[in-house]
């Protein structure tokens, strides 16, 4: 599904922030990506969701080498990856419903064909009564759930979440984790970037630990 071989990343002429990363994300797997602040978690996630290209090494996503991938094929791969951003990245001028439905809308689907799916998903994440609310009036937890719903709505094969519980209380964090676990059980590969040890202790899963730009994998 996703394979890194001797991948290195540097910004501009600076030092490498990621060094010699070699690992794979298998289909229907669940893993935490962790490490201290500044270890390169977000950079690694950006490589994984094709926002960056490595400065060296090989990255294959769904069997395609992203260094040789024509730009026109990027959107097709991105649609197979759901991303939950640490800062949610909800569009302020759109309602919760519109934000969550965005991936389906940009895929060219008619609203009537996805309306029921989106409403059901929003109900599932507990936002069934907040369809018409704009992000500016949502709480941190609601924004988090809306961002998760948006990442899930197109039924991605892989879900990447950057600190998805960073802005919520422990109780809600556990609920969100259960949501990811259920998603994993349904066949989606999940990667959760977090530095919350307590959260990782709640679910026994593979851990990818980044330290000083190098990755250590604990199965």
């Amino acid at each position, binding site marked *: 599904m996703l394979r890194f071989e001797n991948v290195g990343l540097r910004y501009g002429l600076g030092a490498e922030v990621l060094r010699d990363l070699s690992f794979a994300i298998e289909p229907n797997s669940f893993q935490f990506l962790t490490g201290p602040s500044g270890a390169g978690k977000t950079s690694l996630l950006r490589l994984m969701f094709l926002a960056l290209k490595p400065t060296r090494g090989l990255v294959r996503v769904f069997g395609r080498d992203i260094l040789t991938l024509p*730009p*026109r094929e990027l959107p097709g791969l991105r649609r197979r990856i759901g991303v939950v951003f640490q800062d949610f990245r909800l569009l302020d001028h759109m309602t919760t419903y519109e934000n969550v439905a965005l991936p389906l809308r*940009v895929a060219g689907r008619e609203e009537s064909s996805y*309306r029921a799916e989106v409403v059901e*998903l929003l109900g599932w994440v507990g936002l069934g009564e907040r*369809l018409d*609310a704009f992000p500016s009036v949502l709480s941190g937890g609601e924004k988090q759930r809306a961002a998760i719903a948006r990442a899930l709505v197109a*039924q991605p094969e892989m879900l990447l979440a950057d600190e998805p519980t960073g802005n919520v209380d422990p109780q809600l964090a556990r609920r969100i984790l259960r949501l990811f676990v*259920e998603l994993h059980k349904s066949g989606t590969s999940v990667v959760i970037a977090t530095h919350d040890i307590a959260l990782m202790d709640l679910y026994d899963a593979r851990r990818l630990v980044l330290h000083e730009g190098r990755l250590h994998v604990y199965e």
Partner: protein
Amino acid sequence: MSGRNGAAPAGRREDDEAPAKTQSPRGGDLRAQSRPAAGPGRRLGPIVPASSVSGTTLVMVIAIMTYLAGLTVGGVDLVRATADDWARDIVRETTIQIRPAEGRDMDASVARVSEIARGTRGVSEVRPYSKAETARLLEPWLGSGLSFDDLPIPRLVVLKLSDATQFDAVAMQAKLEREAPGATLDDHRRFLDRLVAMARTIVWLGVGVLALMLAATVLSVVFATRGAMAGNRDIVQVLHFVGARDGYIAGQFQRRFLRLGLKGGCAGGAAAIATFLTAGLMADQGVGTAAVDQVDALFGRFEVGASAYAGVLSIVLIIAALTSITSRVTVYRTLRAMG
């Protein structure tokens, strides 16, 4: 779930994994918003918010450019129509000039030329100018009271043409050379050629001015689009991350700019048409006054034709289309630069 077979995981219970539901906005939630929203069943809002594009300034620039372009089109059309009128008047009339020469009987020459002219196809009327009439023509330059008997003044025969296409100027000139020495046909072609050249120059000048205005409009749209892209960078990034193609993103901006282009174009076009109508009305009201009569005599009636109005409408459509296409191209280029 099947996560890939349904929106929400299957087999879930209403109250198990999902976080607690929040209160309905209509059920008294204080955080609910009062502004219209676009939930299910309602019209979806635009992906690029209207407020994020500096529309008012661009609409004004486009309106001014369209107005000036419309006036240019109207002016060019007026010049072209007036030149056509002049040309039509000129080709309806032609003149034969008989130069005096030693021993030449001018009256006999005039009579012979008139006779030849009357027998020529396409000539409806032949009017030889008498000595007195010729003298009157020269009065503005030589003054009155002079005797022209001793001066070698050429004589004129004016021909009115019933059908300029039937009139063969070359054949007539040849006949005059054979049968009436000293007579030359002046069909005003040199003057007409100059007139046509002047009219064409003005038309090309107008086209040049139009091209500059359209170029200025394109540049304004490029700057506005770049500004809009910079202001909506977060939106563009999110669209990319959810799998939007560049064409889709460009289409969102293009639609927004097409609306702005049409809005500004219609405003400028309407103002140009209003200017034509007002100027025509003022010219009509001034008929009979010395100033308007002089202008009419020189340039013809101020009458903007249907082609000018059609030209203004074309300008509106061209500017709207240019705005739309320019914004699309600019978005593509900016996306490439961002990538």
